[in-house]
C-alpha cells in the first residue's frame, strides 16, 4: 500500500516538473546577450591574421631580420651548388667529401665480408 501511494505521488510530481517548462524569457535579456556576443566576436579571419602577425613580429629583428636570414640561406644554397674558383682546396675537399662517401662501398658490407673471411679461416 505504501509503495503504491509513493508511486502515484511520484507520478504527480513528475507531471508537475514536466509542466515547469522554461520560465518566460525577458526580451531585454536576449538583446543584451546578443549584443555582448556581437561586441566580443572576432572579425572574420581576424584571429588567424593576428596570430600570423604576432609570429613574424616575434622574430628577433622583425621583417629586417627575416630578410637577412633569407639572404644568408640563399647564399649558402648557391655556394653548395657552384663553389667559386677562389675557394681554398681544404674547403672544396669538405664540400665534395659527401659525394665521395656516396660512391664508396658501405661500411656494413665490408664488415660483413671481414667476419665471413675470418669464419672461413677458422673452419679451415
Amino acid at each position, binding site marked *: 500500500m505504501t509503495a503504491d501511494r509513493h508511486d502515484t505521488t511520484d507520478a504527480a510530481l513528475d507531471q508537475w*516538473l514536466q509542466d515547469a517548462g522554461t520560465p518566460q524569457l525577458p526580451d531585454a*535579456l536576449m538583446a543584451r*546577450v546578443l549584443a555582448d556576443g556581437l561586441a566580443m566576436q*572576432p572579425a572574420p579571419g581576424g584571429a588567424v591574421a593576428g596570430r600570423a602577425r604576432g609570429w613574424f613580429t616575434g622574430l628577433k629583428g622583425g621583417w629586417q631580420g627575416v630578410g637577412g636570414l633569407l639572404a644568408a640561406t640563399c647564399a649558402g644554397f648557391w655556394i653548395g651548388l657552384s663553389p667559386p674558383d677562389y675557394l681554398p682546396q681544404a674547403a672544396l675537399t669538405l664540400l665534395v667529401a659527401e659525394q665521395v662517401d656516396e660512391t664508396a662501398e658501405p661500411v656494413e658490407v665490408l664488415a660483413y665480408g671481414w667476419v665471413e673471411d675470418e669464419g672461413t679461416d677458422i673452419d679451415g
Partner: protein
Amino acid sequence: MPLDQDTETDDATLLARYARGDAAATRTLTLRLTPRVFGHAFRVLGDRAEAEDVAQDAMLRLWKIAPKWEADRAQVSTWLFRVTANLCTDRLRKRRGGPALDDIAEPADPAPGAEGQLQTRARMDALTAALQTLPDRQRQAVVLRHIEGLANPEIADILDVGVEAVESLTARGKRALKAALAPQKQALGYSDDS
C-alpha cells in the same frame, strides 16, 4: 533554412563559426542557449533579476572562451551549465538566508483571460517556491535532472561530483520536493492519479 532556426548544427560547430566571425552563429547560440541558462538560474535562484544577471554572465564567458574552445574538451552545454551552476552557487553563498518567499517567482505577463494559464502560473510559482526549500546542491541536481532532463553522468560533470552522488542528490531532493508540494497539490489541480 535561416541559421536562427537551425536545430541540427551542434553547439561546438556553431561556436567555431562564432569564433570565425559568423554573426548568424551568434544569433543561433543566443536563441538556443540563453533560455536554458536562464531557466536553470531562475529555478535555482528563484529570482528573475538575479537569474538574468547569471545568464548574461554565463553567456559572456562563453563568448570569451569561444576562440580558445577545444572541440574535445566537453559538450558546450555541459560547460555552460557548469559555469551557470557555479555562478548560482556563488550567489547563494553570498545570500544570507535566501530570498523572501514574496520575492520568488515574480509574475510574468499573464496570457489575457486564460484561466488555464493562470493555473499553470500558479503551479510554476509553487514549484519555484518549493525548490527554494531544498539545499543548494539538491536543488541544482533536481533542476538539471527533472526539469532540464540531463543524464546523470552529465550532471556529475556539471556539479563536479560522482554519478552516485548525483543519484543520491536527486533522490533526496525529489523526496523533499514532494513533501514541500504536498499541501498545495489538490489546490493546484494535481491528484495522485495524474
